[in-house]
């Protein structure tokens, strides 16, 4: 019987990456010196399940590598090894290597062997450091050099005696001894002796528990590693002793290990003890390899297409569907009553019919109201399936801060809150990189080095705060640091130098702050590999805009900066304002709208006889006529009492003249590009309640089309 394992691969990778995340975050909380056993246990468990899974699915390199990590963790757990900063750092590094290996396994690409070998060398070096403590299990497997390894592991012999004493709960994990025995019998001639002395009387027998133990004799030319592989899944759930068959003198192991057949004590000697010299040879060789930089980093794979959904969310939807069915039958009833009533009315007797009519109408309205509520709730429920807590993104940050602060010699305290805030999966996948950019920037440019901080009268340790929360259909993410803030004079000088603004331009503080988002802008005096290539902020802004969000920065020199990202909850639905222009309905994304107002003639000015501007309170904002942008005939010379929607474009307000304002409503976004092409002024389309199509504005596109038409002389103001 063979099962196609590949169907489980996706789940395995998903779980493994989750496991890696757990390992990473727990490693970061691990205190050097006094390792909390609980934390180490958590890390160990995560590593262990990755190892088990990898073994099952045949990713031997992954399981071997994890095994070495596990050994180190095991020693930390039982206290025979101190938790040193070096060990923690190399474990963190190993997590990275493991991730690369898993990614390579998933994408069927090559693993950078040198990188893996280098990491093996580091781990083995740590393991070797305290060889004096050899009483503990130091089952170092010199995996990087399989040929050398083979002489130990693949000891040719006549066979093995395996003492297999499972713990009573072995069956709970779905392991079946019979299956393992069958696998063993494929390796060689197997004979088994069962010990059923622990079997309780029938009345006390718990059918889910395992009371038996076995002594197995496996004859033939078999390597020990093969046997171990069979028991790979259960090695923690049983006491396992593998000894060579008596009489086998070729194996060095036989000398070291007592030849006792059954060891009733709970000692698990799973792996053979390697010859120590071999280990040092390996690590020496690998240290050479380590000096060479890992060459290529495998490219990031596409995001997974599956999603894990909490059972509560599914239950909720099932409940909602139940309610929907009830509403449907209720409306059905109304329909039948109405039909019966119509028949009765046609036969005659008009007296009571009016009253019944009113009654049916009342029920119909009630049913429709209920249907509306059901639909809305169902929509919300289905949308929530796509929602994931933002901790998926935030969880990357502690590691980033940990690594970067060490690199930059800064002391930083990362405070994260609102991790449970939920966000659409697609938005989440696309917000990760911009967030990393912003955090890097805050660390690199924002927070100062300890000496500068002390000189400025601030505490040595800088505080970086990540916060997320919901606000009216949007998700707000704040990245706040108490660093130097944006140096406005320098930003201004730089912007002039780069030709982004002119010498004489007068800008508000806010406008200066937002210059950092301009393409090709970077004030970092030294371009570091952390940030400062001058693409970062520009890209951050573009990616956030692409998601239908906005980013603003507030900064006070010497006090710090706050970056606020405002994102839509989901990409599939948008809150929109319906407007009409030239007889067509359009949707303006509510997130872009600042306010709507009626134009007052006295506030309009023409600048240089060309563009029109509007004086809104103490600000002058450009006016764009939607009709002109769309090429629709515009016979309104005077804009008095016209409706103007003020939208935000690149951080500054722009007024757009529309014909009519209609209601606000949630619309489902449909792509125009699926069957057509990109329309510069539109970000998509939607279907309105009456089945007609309405296009959704892209206000940035509107402004650039307006500019183009103005320059071409198509529009005259």
């Amino acid at each position, binding site marked *: 019987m063979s099962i196609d394992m590949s169907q489980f691969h996706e789940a395995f990778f998903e779980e493994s990456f989750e496991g890696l995340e757990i390992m990473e975050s727990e490693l970061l909380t691990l205190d050097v010196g006094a390792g909390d056993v609980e934390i180490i246990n958590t890390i160990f468990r995560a590593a262990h399940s990755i190892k088990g899974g990898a073994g099952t699915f045949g990713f031997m390199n992954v399981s071997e590598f994890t095994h070495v990590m596990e050994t180190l963790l095991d020693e930390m757990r039982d206290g025979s090894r101190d938790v040193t900063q070096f060990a923690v750092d190399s474990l963190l590094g190993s997590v990275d290597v493991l991730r690369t290996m898993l990614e390579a396994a998933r994408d069927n690409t090559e693993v950078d062997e040198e990188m893996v070998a280098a990491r093996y060398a580091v781990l083995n070096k740590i393991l070797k450091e305290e060889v004096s403590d050899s009483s503990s299990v130091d089952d170092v497997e010199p995996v990087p050099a399989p040929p050398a390894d083979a002489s130990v592991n693949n000891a040719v012999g006549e066979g093995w005696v395996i003492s297999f004493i499972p713990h009573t709960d072995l069956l709970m994990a779905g392991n079946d001894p019979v299956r393992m025995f069958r696998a063993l019998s494929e390796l060689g001639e197997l004979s088994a002796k069962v010990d059923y002395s622990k079997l309780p009387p029938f009345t006390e027998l718990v059918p889910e528990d395992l009371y038996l133990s076995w002594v197995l004799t496996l004859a033939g030319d078999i390597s020990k590693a093969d046997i171990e592989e069979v028991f790979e899944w259960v090695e923690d759930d049983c006491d396992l002793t593998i000894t060579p068959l008596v009489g086998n003198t070729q194996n060095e192991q036989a000398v070291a290990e007592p030849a006792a057949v059954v060891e009733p004590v709970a000692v698990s000697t799973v792996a053979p003890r390697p010859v120590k010299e071999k280990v040092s040879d390996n690590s020496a060789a690998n240290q050479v390899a380590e000096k060479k930089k890992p060459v290529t980093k495998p490219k990031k794979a596409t995001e997974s297409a599956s999603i894990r959904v909490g059972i509560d969310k599914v239950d909720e939807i099932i409940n909602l569907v139940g309610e929907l069915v009830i509403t449907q039958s209720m409306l059905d009833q109304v329909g039948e009553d109405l039909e019966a009533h119509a028949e009765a009315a046609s036969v005659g007797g008009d007296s009571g019919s009016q009253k019944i009519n009113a009654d049916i109408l009342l029920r119909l309205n009630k049913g429709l109201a209920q249907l509306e509520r059901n639909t809305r709730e169902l929509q919300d429920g289905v949308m929530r399936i796509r929602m994931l807590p933002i901790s998926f993104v935030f969880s990357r940050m502690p590691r980033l801060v940990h690594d970067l602060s060490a690199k930059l010699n800064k002391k930083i305290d990362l405070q994260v809150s609102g991790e449970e805030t939920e966000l659409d999966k697609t938005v989440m996948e696309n917000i990760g990189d911009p967030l990393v950019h912003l955090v890097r920037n805050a660390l690199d440019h924002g927070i100062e080095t300890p000496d500068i901080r002390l000189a400025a009268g601030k505490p040595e340790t800088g505080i970086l705060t990540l916060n997320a929360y919901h606000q009216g259909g949007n998700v707000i993410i704040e990245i706040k640091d108490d660093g130097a803030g944006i140096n406005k004079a320098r930003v201004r000088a730089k912007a002039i130098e780069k030709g982004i603004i002119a010498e004489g331009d007068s800008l508000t503080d806010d406008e200066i702050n937002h210059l950092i988002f301009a393409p090709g802008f970077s004030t970092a005096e030294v371009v570091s590999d952390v940030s400062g290539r001058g693409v970062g902020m520009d890209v951050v802004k573009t990616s956030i805009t692409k998601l239908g969000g906005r980013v603003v920065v507030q900064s006070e020199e010497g006090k710090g900066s706050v970056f606020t990202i405002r994102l839509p909850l989901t990409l599939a639905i948008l809150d929109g304002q319906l407007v009409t222009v030239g007889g067509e309905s359009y949707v303006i994304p509510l997130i872009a709208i600042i306010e709507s107002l009626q134009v007052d003639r006295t506030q309009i000015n023409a600048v240089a006889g060309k563009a029109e501007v509007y004086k809104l309170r103490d600000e002058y904002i450009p006016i764009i006529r939607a009709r002109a942008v769309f090429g629709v005939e515009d016979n309104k010379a005077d804009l008095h009492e016209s409706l103007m929607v003020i939208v935000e474009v690149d951080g500054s307000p722009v007024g757009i003249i529309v014909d009519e304002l209609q209601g606000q409503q949630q619309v489902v976004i449909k*792509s*125009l590009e699926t069957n057509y092409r990109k329309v510069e*002024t539109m970000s998509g389309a939607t*279907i309105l309640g009456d089945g*007609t*199509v309405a296009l959704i504005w892209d206000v940035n596109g509107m402004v650039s089309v307006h500019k183009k038409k103005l320059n071409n002389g*198509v529009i005259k103001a």
Partner: protein
Amino acid sequence: MSTSLDPVSDDVEVTDNIHENQYLTFLLGDEEYGVDILRVQEIRGWDSVTTIPNAPAFIKGVINLRGTIVSILDLRERFGIESVDYNELTVVVVLRVKGEGKDRIMGVVVDAVSEVYHIAENDLKDPPDLGYAINMDYMKGMATVDNKMVSILDIDQLMSLKDIDDATESGGKAGA
């Protein structure tokens, strides 16, 4: 209603791939045009569309086709034939168009649908390269059926996005 002019109709290949040679034809004024029937998704009556700002004139707009946004192209305007008012006979032929790495669904407005013809590959002649209203790139060939001339269109070329882009560019400048 279909007339086979295939002289080698005993050819097994042809009978096996009988649909390969079926064409749906429609009318534009007096002229009859055909498209590969396998590319036709459906035929529907003309209904109002939502116009797309700054689109070339031959793009009438978009419609909601059971939840999908589909653009509608007027074939008369595409060919530069004098346009007529839409009436109850005016239909939209919804076609599956290939090209630019993906399949698209687009509708074309025509005066009326006509027939389904079975035309063998051999009977498809190269169009004469003169005095013809349409750009030769859009033509797959011509055939004579029942003494009528039918122009077979290459819809992938006809509806390519590149042409729409070019038209949008020039339309954007000259429009308004």
